């Protein structure tokens, strides 16, 4: 079991104190995790040496006192450190029994064996939980001092033992990335893993734990890569780290499981808090969702309409407007998996004062697509027209989305829009700029023909474009 964080894990203790302080610790033959007495010029302290965040000043040793408080002791003030550990062989500080030892599921194999033995009278969904990192699976990292994705999916499961009341969860670790470090290669790997599960394993649904920052890009990517998917795949994140009692991780996860158990629909979804309360979880369509707040629990909002479903305490309310064509398909014969992505797509946000000469650079680079995030109905300054024309005639596709976030790009209303259309700029309706980028990467990665590419971009593949925006 390696669930305890990891004072005893081999690679941390050596790395955590940088050279100067590590030397100092070596001098007194003590290391991270040791129980020590530190004598300083002013006082004596008893406690356990803790790792220190690498980014912090090198002048201090961190000690956890018996009271539980941590303090930093300046190396300069230390006269002596005495190691209180009698038995050096078992020097890890974690010797107390761990209440979660009773938790039956600790790794993938165990869980499978366990579920086989479990009383299957409960009608609980069988769910693959793929961990990719992020706050939902985060803990304190002494290397950086911040919250970091250290928990694997199985660790997450052991941290939330009650999950077993909601479903049979088969946790699996795919990778451990902050979501800002995710790139199209990760999307492909994730899509391939899910595709394999669809074809070869029998789950009622799949949950992907994901960092929130780019979760809506990943949900778009999966929506395009995995067409006609026969089961629901739900991406889940948490805005407040799971190391805090108030974390939204658990309720988002439970919301996702309940959705999978309840729903007749399949597709790619995102489950997050609907508002700041822990009561309603919103389930969004993967191509229609956006992170709209840096820290709040309800940062994710469906664009241009209500969420696909609201998972409330007693039941799940579905948004009737969005149900067409996503009925759960029981036979997976229409399922197609096209998981390649090209990175030759550039997203460019226009702003007052934007210098058109910047666009000249694209003539020298090998970007094939520029997604413009224009103003209002889909505009950029007329100063940009000449170079846009040059770019388009050189073979670069230029698409228009709006930085308004909500609403549809309509370029026939004003002269500017009409002129841009005349230059060959292609409007992308009410597809969000983030979804548009991902779609372009996918279309480019899986198609070659020019006409085909433009047609794909303008066609609704996965609810990314709507012909009718509700008045909400």
């Amino acid at each position: 079991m390696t669930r305890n964080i990891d004072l005893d894990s081999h690679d941390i203790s050596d790395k955590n104190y940088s050279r100067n302080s590590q030397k100092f610790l070596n001098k007194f033959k003590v290391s991270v995790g040791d129980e020590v007495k530190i004598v300083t010029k002013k006082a004596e302290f008893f406690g356990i040496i803790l790792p220190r965040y690498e980014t912090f000043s090198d002048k201090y040793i961190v000690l956890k006192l018996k009271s539980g408080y941590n303090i930093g002791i300046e190396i300069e003030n230390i006269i002596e450190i005495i190691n209180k550990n009698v038995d050096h062989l078992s020097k890890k500080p974690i010797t107390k029994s761990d209440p979660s030892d009773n938790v039956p599921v600790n790794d993938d194999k165990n869980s499978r064996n366990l579920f086989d033995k479990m009383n299957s009278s409960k009608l609980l969904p069988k769910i693959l939980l793929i961990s990719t990192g992020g706050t939902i699976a985060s803990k304190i990292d002494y290397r950086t001092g911040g919250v970091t994705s250290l928990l694997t999916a199985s660790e997450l499961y052991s941290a939330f033992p009650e999950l077993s009341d909601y479903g049979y969860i088969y946790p699996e670790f795919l990778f451990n990335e902050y979501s800002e470090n995710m790139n199209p290669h990760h999307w492909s790997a994730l899509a391939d893993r899910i595709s394999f599960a669809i074809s070869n394993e029998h789950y009622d649904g799949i949950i992907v734990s994901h960092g929130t920052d780019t979760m809506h890009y990943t949900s778009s990517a999966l929506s395009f890569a995995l067409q006609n998917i026969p089961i629901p795949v739900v991406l889940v994140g948490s805005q407040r780290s799971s190391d805090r009692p108030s974390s939204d991780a658990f309720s988002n996860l439970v919301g996702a499981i309940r959705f999978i158990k309840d729903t007749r629909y399949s597709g790619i979804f995102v489950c997050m808090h609907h508002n700041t309360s822990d009561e309603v979880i919103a389930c969004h369509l993967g191509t229609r969702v956006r992170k709209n707040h840096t820290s709040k629990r309800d940062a994710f909002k469906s664009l241009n309409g209500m969420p696909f479903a609201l998972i409330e305490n007693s039941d799940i309310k579905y948004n009737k407007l969005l149900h067409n064509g996503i009925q759960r398909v029981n036979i997976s014969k229409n399922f197609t998996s096209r998981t390649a992505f090209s990175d030759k797509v550039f997203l460019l946000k226009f702003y007052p004062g934007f210098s058109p000469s910047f666009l000249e650079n694209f003539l020298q680079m090998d970007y094939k697509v520029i997604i413009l995030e224009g103003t209002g109905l889909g505009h950029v300054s007329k100063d940009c027209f000449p170079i846009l024309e040059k770019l388009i005639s050189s073979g670069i596709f230029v698409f228009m989305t709006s930085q308004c976030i909500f609403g549809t790009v309509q370029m026939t209303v004003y002269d500017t829009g009409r002129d841009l259309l005349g230059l060959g700029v292609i409007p992308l309706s009410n597809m969000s700029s983030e979804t548009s980028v991902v779609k372009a990467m996918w279309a480019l990665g899986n198609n070659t023909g020019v006409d085909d590419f433009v047609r794909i971009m303008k066609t609704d593949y996965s609810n990314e474009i709507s012909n009718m925006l509700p008045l909400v």
Partner: protein
Amino acid sequence: MNLDIDKLNVKVGFEIHQQLSTSSKLFCSCKGDGSNDEGYDFNFIRVLRPTKSELGDFDKAALFEHAKMNSIKYYSKVGYSCLVEADEEPPHEVSKDALETALLFSLALNSNIVDEIHVMRKLVIDGSNVSGFQRTMLISTGGYLEVDNFNKIGVQGICLEEDAAKLISTNPLLKEYGLDRLGIPLVEIALDPISGTPAEIVNVALTLGRLLRSSKRVTRGIGSIRQDVNISVNGGQVVEVKGVQQLSQLIKVLDYETKRQYGLIKIAEEFKNRNIDDSFIGDKIEDITSLFSNSSSKVIKKILKDPDPIINCIRLRGLRGLIGYEPVKDVRLGKELGEFVRFFGLGGVFHSDELPNYGITINEIDSLKKSVDVSSDDAFIIIGGNREKISNLLEPLIKRIIQFKYGVIAETRSVTLDGTTIFSRPRPGSSRMYPETDIMPIPVDRNLLDSLKNKIPLPWNELIKGIMKKYGLNMKLSEQIFDSDYYNLFERLLITNPTISPTFVASKLTEDIVSLSRNNLDKDLLTDEMILDIFNRLDKGLITKESIILIFEKLMKKDCLSVEEAINSLNLTKLDDTDLFSTLDKLFDDNLSVIREKGPNSMSVLMGKSMAVLRGKVDGSKINDYLKHKLETFLNEGSSPSPSS
């Protein structure tokens, strides 16, 4: 029974929590002075779950809280709480002001300030902290406080932490909290355990409180200072009593806990005498619901009305007579267990030593004994209620009974209004602490410490000497005004109204308000703004000195809601001299017979009669001067002088 405190070796350790008066909260820019509850703007609901410490442990206290966890509703008011309190945003930097104050207290108590301060999260999942933890940081360790009758009392540590949210209401399904208080900075000072008479111990708390107040950086009034008291007898386990707000309550708590702990030690001795093994406790637990299906006991009937009810009997082998054993008045195992199960939302327990009673018949008990196989040496407990509640309770309850074998149980108790204590949770351990990763450690700057040296709060006697000298007050009044809730107001008043005598202001703000409060008038109705207004009017000569206590009384009685209203209702508009003198002349003439009879001694009669008519409208000294002069002239000349002389 008279308990010999010396023999019991009662040790008392204080943890004082003092709210600081900073312009903002500890980790955000919201107002730090709490709101006046004039409605909230927004509310939301959360559920908390325990998490592990960075050492990988669950905290006992946290798990305990979780076992009885429900939803929590929080109320927020714009300006008094923001995304930080709602745990929707990381904390901002530590308030410099608050940090400086904590450092000053450390310097004043000769405590060793740590080289680098680390903000910690202390798990608190009862709902009083939205995040599920209280942010706290150790500022210094060691040091001492000098108190009369003690040498130096050691300081264990000084922490700076955030205050918890304010409980608005609680019921088994929902707790409600207001967020305005959450995050207000608190300094926690823990003292070494001491022994002494209750009066001496109270004096320690008083001395420390005074030192803090002398910084003028703390809030005053009820709730702004809270004492947690750690009490142990005979070197046994420490019981922490939380939330003692007044010193008068402290004496009661000490008395109650000493008795209780002594009683528990006696009960443990009896356990030992009987050689009770852990396995004897709850070795048999039976569902006896059916035995009681026709019971005429009201309590049983009520239990059976619960949704999905169950009545369980727990056998306690060899404990006959011990549950009701009362070594000290009102200290019984039965009482302790009742308190414990009430905490889980049950009404209480029945036990063998008190039955038959409560409408439970001897026949019912006999069939119960048969069914659960209870011998004449054995005791039993009956608990009933909702099946799930009972099943959650059984294990903790049995553990709890086993713990009594070992005497006093280390736990946290809360204080009741009458100064007794009730169980609130197990004592938290160090595993409830883990680092607040959103805030970088704070190195303590030597330059900062040097710059604080001349701001260190003065010891009590020096401070009082300073007040005596500055304002010309006597010692008693200096102490009274400083100890009162009005010292800051007193200083403010004298700056804005420099012509008023400090002694006069101090006596009004202490003696008058205290005497009115003793008559059960509410001093909280008299706001600082009202007091400022009243003295302002005095300074301008609009009202008289005598009228002040009358206005206080009107306001504290809630007869009037504003100073203006009080003055009007008392008819206190000041008389001008012409009206005054003609009133006095008339009064003088009406009493000529007394004056002739008593001569110079008639002055007191005249004053009494004048004040009865003129109190509050004219300065007494002015009446006195006028009458004295008039009387002297009259007695010398044998006739009444004209008013104009």
